[in-house]
């Protein structure tokens, strides 16, 4: 393990006013607490409330695409905007995902340009690289986003990522940092991989055992802090410890694995306690999506704190604790 990122003393000269969109989400809350520790001033926008938000944090309950959001930019003139108001789960309709992910991202970047924001950080996903049999194991930032064809349901996520990246040439005065984070696991139990693993039974494609690249959610938030404090401008992959095969991930997190032939798996998803995933996600159960994070580490000096075992243990511990609490509530 390397030194905890929290131990790095924040530079008071670089104390910034930071606006976080989607601040009520579990990961954004975690990020808020980290940024507060580093002495930054935080403002948030979210359609959902954050009832117990720290007193120093002002949360505006609105949609980033609506007029009141522009007023937040106008009134507070943030130095940095962290755009986390995107959805990754598939319980929302495709149209809604498009509205939130693509139109929301467009609105945020236009506001950043219009109201003189210094740096915009887009928190994206590594899944845009897509899982394919003929793709390299480690993807660099230059790799094409194959998911647009291998995983059509992710098209809005790919489009949002590429749109955010286009701000690098559209708004050269705005430092634009697109972060492509690997799956997050940990205590929040939120995110694509957490939801997949939290089902009573985890499906695997018989005869395949791809590598899964994940990091602790606290490490992920520290990485975003590092991106802000190093004024990053560009596209970066962000990853923590090396990837592990799905079978080991399931074993170490105490999940029940059900390996099924691909044809049968397609018909069984969402039934018999198996995780519900869109059909486009099946290649992710066969081929790895692993990223090369050297560029980010080189430009920020950031290192992960939690290794793969402690990340999986953290997730497992939280999941088991919540299950116990659930059983206790049911017994009462």
């Amino acid at each position, binding site marked *: 393990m390397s030194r905890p990122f929290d131990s790095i003393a924040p530079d008071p000269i670089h104390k910034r006013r930071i606006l976080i969109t989607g601040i009520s989400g579990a990961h954004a809350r975690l990020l808020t607490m980290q940024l507060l520790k580093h002495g930054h001033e935080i403002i948030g926008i979210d359609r959902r409330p954050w009832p117990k938000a720290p007193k120093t944090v002002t949360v505006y309950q609105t949609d980033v695409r609506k007029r009141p959001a522009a007023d937040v930019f106008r009134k507070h003139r943030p130095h940095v905007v962290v755009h986390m108001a995107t959805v990754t789960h598939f319980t929302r309709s495709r149209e809604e995902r498009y509205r939130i992910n693509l139109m929301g991202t467009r609105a945020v970047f236009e506001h950043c340009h219009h109201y003189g924001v210094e740096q915009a950080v887009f928190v994206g996903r590594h899944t845009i690289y897509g899982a394919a*049999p003929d793709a390299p*194991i480690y993807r660099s930032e230059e790799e094409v986003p194959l998911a647009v064809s291998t995983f059509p349901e992710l098209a809005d996520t790919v489009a949002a990522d590429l749109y955010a990246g286009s701000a690098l040439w559209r708004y050269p005065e705005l430092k634009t940092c697109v972060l492509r984070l690997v799956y997050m696991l940990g205590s929040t139990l939120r995110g694509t991989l957490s939801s997949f693993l939290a089902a009573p039974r985890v499906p695997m494609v018989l005869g395949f055992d791809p590598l899964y690249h994940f990091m602790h959610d606290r490490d992920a938030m520290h990485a975003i802090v590092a991106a802000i404090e190093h004024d990053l401008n560009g596209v970066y992959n962000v990853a923590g410890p090396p990837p592990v095969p799905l079978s080991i991930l399931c074993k170490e997190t105490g999940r029940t694995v059900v390996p099924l032939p691909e044809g049968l798996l397609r018909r069984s998803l969402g039934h018999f306690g198996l995780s519900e995933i869109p059909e486009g996600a099946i290649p992710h159960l066969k081929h*790895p999506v692993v990223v090369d994070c050297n560029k980010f580490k080189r430009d920020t000096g950031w290192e992960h704190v939690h290794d793969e075992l402690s990340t999986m243990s953290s997730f497992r511990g939280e999941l088991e604790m919540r299950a116990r609490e659930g059983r206790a509530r049911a017994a009462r």
Partner: protein
Amino acid sequence: MLDRAMSQEVRERLDALDTPFSRWGMDELGVSKKHLGLFFTFLGAMYRHYFRVRSVGIQNIPNTGPAMLIANHSGGIPADAGMIMASVFFDHEPPRLAHGMVEKFAQNWPFVSPWFSRLGQFPGLPEHAVRLLESDRLLLVFPEGARGTGKLFKDRYQMVRFGTGFMRIALQCGAPIVPIAFIGGEEALPTIYHAKTLAKIANAPYWPVPPHLVPVPLPVRCEVHFGEPMYFHGSGDEPDEIIDAHVAKVRGSIEKLIEVGRESRAKSMIGGPK
């Protein structure tokens, strides 16, 4: 239970590899110590008792650092890759792991695809080659590709067209090239015919049909001849004619090694088993 199937010698040699394995016995590319152990236990038996391979010039492989092992390809089912891997693992001191570049079509085959990955045999992509060499590993390349293994017995030991991509990567990574001749592969599985329908069903580039019909290599004696390392200088961005000239030198070295190897194998066949 499978762990017990691993031989003690293989265990010791795996421990001597310079590959960094995690607590689960995996490296950052997904290569698995357990899978390697089972594979090399099986391969060791094939190497010593089935093909009775003799290696010549194994000291030409560097003890550390990157190198590209360039060999002729032969036999409808390429036993040559496994035997060269075994030679580098069992006969070289210290043991080293040679990573191969496999055909992309195999990545969609259940069970085969993860096994290839766990054994460090990755799809033939330049990104994989560069990453392996930059990690100071040995890369085994057959520039003839499937064209080499697909050739018929009447064309044995006549190398087909070499791809040139390997040379650009070797120059880019500053890796020496060790030319290799594998002798015996053509006789182990002499292909007399290609079954196109079976190839189509298996989604493979060809389906070899030998005189004994079942495409399983025969237990013939084989030899691996390692040539002296060849050093080329450049960035990998040179014009095609320069790259072609470098490739021709490598090909020429392999042709010479094949000549020496065929003669040597013929003598040992006359001399009977050692």
